[in-house]
């Protein structure tokens, strides 16, 4: 069943959607992926650049034909010239020697017509006859990709019937709806054997990361078909979480886990670029059935503003402030008034906006976002507020919250969210850092009516799990009367003691993880991120 599922996925995949699992397959074969792009701005004709253990560079051009095979007409109308560039232009990368010739591959998830195979043979012969035998185009077709996927990937997938059903359900899910995060996380956890107590070997790690990569690609394939970039970004972020969990748990060497994370991050980066490109083109923010869309639009805008902000921050972290930064500024500024705190799970998205906006606006106007969040949470979750108006905690997704608000949920939320908040302490500390003492003095009485909640996993690696079975749930009452100096001292602390080691060099990835797993936002993590992102 699994083999047929993979075959079905591969047959329907696009060059974009099979790029990431293809790269994971390369890494599991011991190759290092140096570069992958979907736009080919830097590397002409080269979608993926990798290097093997002997230092030989490999360049790949990925193609999905419209039919079952690459036809002669497709070859003549673009592919031939692209692969000519692939073979003849040098691979330029700081990690590669300039003198060593590269091997070139045309990769397709389908087949190649015989006439095209003959044309490739002729082209290779011409180079050979001209004394340029180092110039050669090799091919990888769908059958080989499928064999690799099955050999390196699926035999590590969970084989229990219930989990096989989950894989099938993820593959068949409607790509226009939200990602089924809990199901994907359960499968990733099993594939990466996070429930097993023995340390995996290095080769086993490579294989498992590759296998989980293929699983993620299949889980997000319907979203890829619909070009639902946010769901795809969420899926690859969850993949990163689980790889990082393995790395943190077993203190793996960076060389073991970094290739898998690099591929996933490049994929996320490309998806963010695609998202921004789509937003540039769009005339409005309406999606799907327009009649009822107004109920969902502000939540959508809040999510998009969060992701666009992260994209801009990421670009800045890479040292590039360009037209994308300008677009992010324009987009976030335009939609700032539509941001919506629909539940506490929206807080990391709003904080992403806060962290970006303070980079582009030197005025204190963005500071009011924090004070508004504090008063919003205290107002909604205060002791005398109506229970139906209370903000659900970050364990409740946007779809669950909206369904409950609209009275259309299958299982009504019976929890009482009043007098508690998982995110208030984080925002209070960030606001205290800004030294708005008078405003904080006004807010403090209502803050004291809401207890600060947080979850502390028993081990740091469990930070990356969707749900951790072991750990402590803290319920802390704000102190009163409270000394301003004491609050300031607490707010300034930024050691990030609860931040796992493997993500300490990558604050942007951590911010992205918080947007996808909002229940991992704690005051300690927020303070650490605030300090790190201020230094970008």
């Amino acid at each position: 069943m699994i083999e047929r599922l993979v075959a079905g996925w591969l047959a329907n995949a696009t060059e974009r959607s099979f790029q990431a699992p293809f790269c994971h397959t390369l890494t599991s074969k011991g190759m290092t992926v140096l570069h992958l792009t979907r736009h080919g701005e830097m590397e002409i004709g080269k979608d993926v650049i990798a290097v093997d253990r002997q230092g030989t560079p490999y360049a790949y051009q990925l193609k999905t034909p419209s039919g079952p095979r690459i036809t002669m007409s497709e070859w003549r109308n673009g592919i031939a010239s692209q692969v000519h560039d692939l073979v003849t232009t040098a691979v330029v990368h700081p990690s590669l020697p300039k003198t060593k010739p590269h091997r070139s591959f045309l990769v397709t998830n389908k087949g190649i017509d015989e006439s095209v195979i003959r044309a490739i043979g002729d082209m290779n012969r011409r180079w050979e006859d001209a004394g340029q035998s180092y110039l050669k185009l090799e091919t990888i077709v769908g059958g080989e990709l499928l064999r690799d996927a099955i050999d390196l990937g699926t035999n590590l997938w969970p084989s229990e019937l219930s989990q096989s059903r989950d894989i099938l359900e993820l593959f068949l899910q409607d790509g226009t709806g939200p990602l089924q995060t809990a199901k994907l996380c359960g499968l990733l956890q099993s594939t990466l054997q996070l429930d097993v107590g023995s340390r995996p070997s290095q080769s086993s790690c490579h294989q498992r990361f590759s296998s989980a990569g293929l699983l993620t690609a299949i889980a997000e394939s319907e979203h890829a078909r619909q070009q639902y970039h946010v769901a795809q970004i969420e899926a690859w972020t969850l993949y990163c979480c689980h790889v990082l969990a393995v790395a943190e748990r077993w203190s793996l060497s960076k060389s073991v886990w970094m290739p898998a994370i690099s591929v996933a991050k490049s994929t996320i980066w490309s998806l963010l670029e695609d998202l921004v490109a789509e937003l540039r083109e769009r005339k409005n923010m309406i999606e799907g059935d327009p009649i009822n869309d107004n109920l969902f639009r502000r939540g959508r805008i809040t999510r998009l503003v969060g992701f666009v902000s992260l994209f801009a921050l990421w670009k800045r972290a890479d040292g590039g402030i360009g037209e994308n930064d300008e677009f992010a500024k324009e987009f976030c500024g335009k939609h700032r008034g539509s941001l919506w705190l629909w539940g506490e799970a929206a807080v990391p998205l709003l904080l992403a906006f806060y962290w970006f906006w303070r980079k582009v606006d030197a005025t204190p106007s963005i500071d009011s976002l924090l004070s508004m969040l504090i008063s919003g949470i205290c107002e909604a979750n205060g002791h005398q507020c109506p229970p139906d108006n209370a903000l659900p905690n970050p364990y409740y997704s946007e779809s669950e919250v909206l369904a409950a608000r609209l009275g259309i949920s299958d299982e009504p939320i019976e929890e009482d969210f009043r007098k508690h908040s998982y995110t208030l302490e984080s925002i209070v500390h960030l606001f205290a850092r800004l030294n708005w003492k008078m405003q904080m003095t006004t807010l403090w009485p209502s803050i004291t009516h809401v207890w600060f909640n947080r979850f502390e996993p028993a081990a740091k690696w469990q930070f990356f799990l969707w749900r951790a079975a072991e750990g402590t749930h803290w319920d802390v009452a704000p102190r009163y009367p409270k000394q301003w100096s004491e609050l300031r001292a607490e707010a300034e602390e930024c050691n990030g003691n609860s931040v796992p080691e493997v993500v300490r060099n990558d604050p942007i990835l951590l911010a992205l993880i918080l947007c996808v797993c909002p229940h991992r936002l704690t005051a300690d993590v927020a303070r650490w991120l605030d300090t790190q992102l201020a230094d970008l």
Partner: protein
Amino acid sequence: MLPDFPHLKTKLSKFLDARMKSIHNRATPFSRASAVCIQEGNCTKMIRADGTEETIEMKHHHTEVRISDEELETLSSEEIQRKFDEAAREMANQMTQTCFESLNKAISEVGNAVRYTGMPTVEDIFRMYETIDIDFDECGKPELPTLMCGRKMMEHLQALHTQIESDPETNKRFANLMIRKKEEWRDREASRRLVG
């Protein structure tokens, strides 16, 4: 397999679940208390505003419904339902007991226990209100705690409250107590500030 209607049965099961929940809620006074779901972990810790810390142990409650194949063929739907109703009540009893144990422990630890012999008197009622903090709503009305007791005790307590209301002297004493409690509440609220 034999002919079956699994989807209809799933829908029926949802009704059964809702019925059990309703019976459970009616069988325990604590169903009116606000519920918080702990989504992760195996331990809960609490730090109060005064800095005192408490670890709350998670307790597992369960109940079983056993119906043999023979019974399934002979019992009516109502009889099967009654077994589940009983399980819901049993579950409620277990949870009520745990809640009372936790309450008793907390009350004893902070020294708020009021002890009396026989049936409580008006004096005991006053002593009880003296020991607790009382909050007031937006209109200034006291948010008096819920009293949990058996039917006989409830009748007795109702009589005591009627006595407090009807007797001018005790009524005045109660009003004065509430005025004092309101002042204490105002002091508490006033202390919710950021200083320095």
